[in-house]
């Protein structure tokens, strides 16, 4: 099953305290809400989902006032950098198996992984097959 939440547009004025520091999975999309990347905030992510989302969308300078920074803030993979506009996430303690599930679901629909995941140095383990396409795939999402 994919992440069922609606997309949220990244807003530079967002209060970063509203983003959870917990573990979980997240998805980034471009201006047309096409998935660019399916990521996870793992047990060793230094600032959980908050840190992972901020590092894709913003810079340490833009977070002035924050008493923390992600070591990879502002760095990104070429297919994501400057293109990500939307995000959605799920707080989930079983982030690893859920990450694999969301990637598997995506690959089932699109016959490939999201562009960011193809470039990502961290590749998932071999993914399974569900043998059915979702309604999203039928709608070209």
């Amino acid at each position, binding site marked *: 099953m994919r992440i069922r939440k609606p997309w949220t547009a990244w807003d530079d004025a967002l209060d970063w305290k509203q983003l959870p520091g*917990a573990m*979980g999975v997240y998805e980034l999309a471009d201006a047309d809400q096409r998935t660019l990347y399916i990521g996870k905030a793992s047990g060793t*992510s*230094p600032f959980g989902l908050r840190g992972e989302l901020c590092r894709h969308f913003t810079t340490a300078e833009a977070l002035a006032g924050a*008493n923390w920074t992600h070591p990879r803030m502002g760095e990104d993979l070429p297919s994501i950098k400057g293109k990500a506009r939307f995000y959605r996430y799920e*707080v989930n*303690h079983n982030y690893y198996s859920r990450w694999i599930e969301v990637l598997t679901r995506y690959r089932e629909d699109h016959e490939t992984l999201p562009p960011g995941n193809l470039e990502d140095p961290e590749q998932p383990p071999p993914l399974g097959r569900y043998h059915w396409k979702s309604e999203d795939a039928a709608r070209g999402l």
Partner: protein
Amino acid sequence: MDFELSEEQRLIIDNVRRFIREEIRPLEADLDPDAYRLKPEDEARLEAMTNEMGLFQMDVPQEYGGPGVDTVTRTLIAEELSQHRAGLYAPAYGVFGSGPQGQLYNATESQKENYLWPTIRGEKHGFFGLSEPSGGSDPARAIQTRGVRDGDEWVINGGKLWNSGADTADYGIVYVRTDPTKGRQGITAFIVDTDTPGFRVNRLVQVLRSHYTTELSFSDMRVPHENILGEEGGGFALANDYLARNRIPYSAAGIGVAVYAHEIAIEWAKQRVTFGEPLASRQAIQWMLVDNEIDIRTARWACLAAADKAEKGLPFRFESSMAKLISTEGAGRVVDRCMQIMGGLGMSKDLPMERWYRELRIRRIGEGPSEVQRIVMARDLLNIGSGSR
């Protein structure tokens, strides 16, 4: 001690029980299994309801505008509030309000203006900064964070570990060694704004539950002398009546989770047929259920006994430690047995039990580990002090 509820207590308990079953549990179907916050619109709607029930901010004393709920009733409420998926650490998702840390009632008038009142109004949040990498069970000896006075300020260097909520807090109550020659009497509590230069959140430390803790560092962090909470060197004296009192409802929350798990397991045992008979007809399962009931009732009595003593103004340190120990360990056993009765379903995220199992494990460490509770009780039994150093 009379365990019979008064008419008023029964009414309150029925109301809270209905609120949890009819308002909170249905919302959880649409939340992440590990979520600890409601959607903001639900939060606002439900807070209005708890206000109407007269139970909003029930941990705030009456003289500060709270509804004035006595300790026994508060303990009974705590057992009800936790009876949902997120209930152990986020009872009713906080819609009954979360009062300030008890130490703040000892603050000066200007500290109350800056921290206590805004916290009661929900405008500010604080964290509790006691534990350090050097140890949390025996903070009097373990605290290495150092404060050195410089005129009207203190320069603080060091760091803290495991501080829940410090990443989003506006301030923290931070325990600092201000006099290394005085042992326990050399620890001072400071109110520290989290935007003070030198205050840094190094990382979030993930644990068994989905909510995390933090690792903090303080480098040449300058805190005004007037931000000392209580007396210089009196940090531990602040661990007052309020703190020990809070340990009782904290313990009762564990019972609530056990009660709910037990209810689910009983229903399941009656319905699930294996080898031609319902599980409930098997003695192995019946005994697990009876053991659950014994653990639940023992913990409930221990919590109520502690609450009763606290309410009557009698010494209750021994009883509150005993309640904490019995309830956290007993509730862990109950949930474990329930998971066994549920089989595979008990392991899955479709049910709340796996979450309670993880969270209850933390309860045996947080708020004073089981061993420390035993140390407190042993000191009372043997009439020995904690030592000055």
